[in-house]
């Protein structure tokens, strides 16, 4: 059964399917920052895909019994499926390079036997500095302190 508030089993299963199908994607935004230890609050898991028409992505979507909903004017593309309504599809990141360029700035995260890629904290900070939305400005000082804590801490971490 899916967790009500935390990461849902459907989300974990979908991430693993994307990895198993070798779909080029990365976790970005505050969920990526949280994975790296940022004590931040977020509601969504943001995924940046290299190509939304990737045949491997279509296969993963089919296997997960998920529907891809194409973008419409102001509405971004999204997935429709049980427990996946809080996965946001990202097609552009403010202030960052291309997908391929930023892929070089990701770290691996193992989920079971699968590995997904997570955008490094430094690049998340760069994107939020460029976007400068109100919520970005609130979180920026926190993310910068987290980055420095990771750099200077003697505590073991990934």
């Amino acid at each position, binding site marked *: 059964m899916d*967790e*009500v*508030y*935390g*990461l849902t089993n459907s989300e*974990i299963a979908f991430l693993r399917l994307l990895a198993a199908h070798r779909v080029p994607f990365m976790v970005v935004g*505050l*969920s990526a920052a*949280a*994975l*790296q*230890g*940022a*004590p*931040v*609050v*977020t*509601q969504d*898991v943001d995924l940046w895909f290299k190509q939304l028409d990737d045949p491997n992505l279509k296969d993963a979507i089919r296997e997960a019994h998920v529907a891809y909903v194409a973008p419409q004017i102001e509405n971004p593309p999204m997935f429709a499926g049980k427990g996946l309504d*809080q996965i946001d599809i990202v097609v552009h990141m403010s202030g960052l390079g291309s997908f391929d360029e930023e892929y070089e700035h990701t770290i691996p*995260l193992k*989920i079971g036997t699968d590995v997904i890629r*997570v955008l490094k904290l430094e690049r998340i900070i760069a994107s939020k500095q460029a976007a400068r939305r109100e919520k970005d400005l609130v979180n920026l*000082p*926190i993310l910068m*302190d*987290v980055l*420095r*804590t*990771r750099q*200077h*801490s*003697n*505590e*073991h*971490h*990934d």
Partner: protein
Amino acid sequence: MLKKKKGGYDERGDGGMGDAVEKPSDLSLDVEEIGRLRAECDRLMRVMPDADRHTVWHTLLMLRLSPLDRLRRSLLRGRGLRANKL
């Protein structure tokens, strides 16, 4: 007062259920670990005195968890917050 519980100490004596939407935490610290982490937090604050101690402390706690558990906690709070507003 700290109450001893299996595997560690429960500072609030409520099994970690103090927050309405919080599930029992899998982050159990004993007194020695808290002391060690506090010393590490103090050391970091000397290295970066302009940092926010609250953020540094909670980052040290988060770094003790697996990455997925960190995300779970982040979403737990974010989604719980939203659900309570509905």
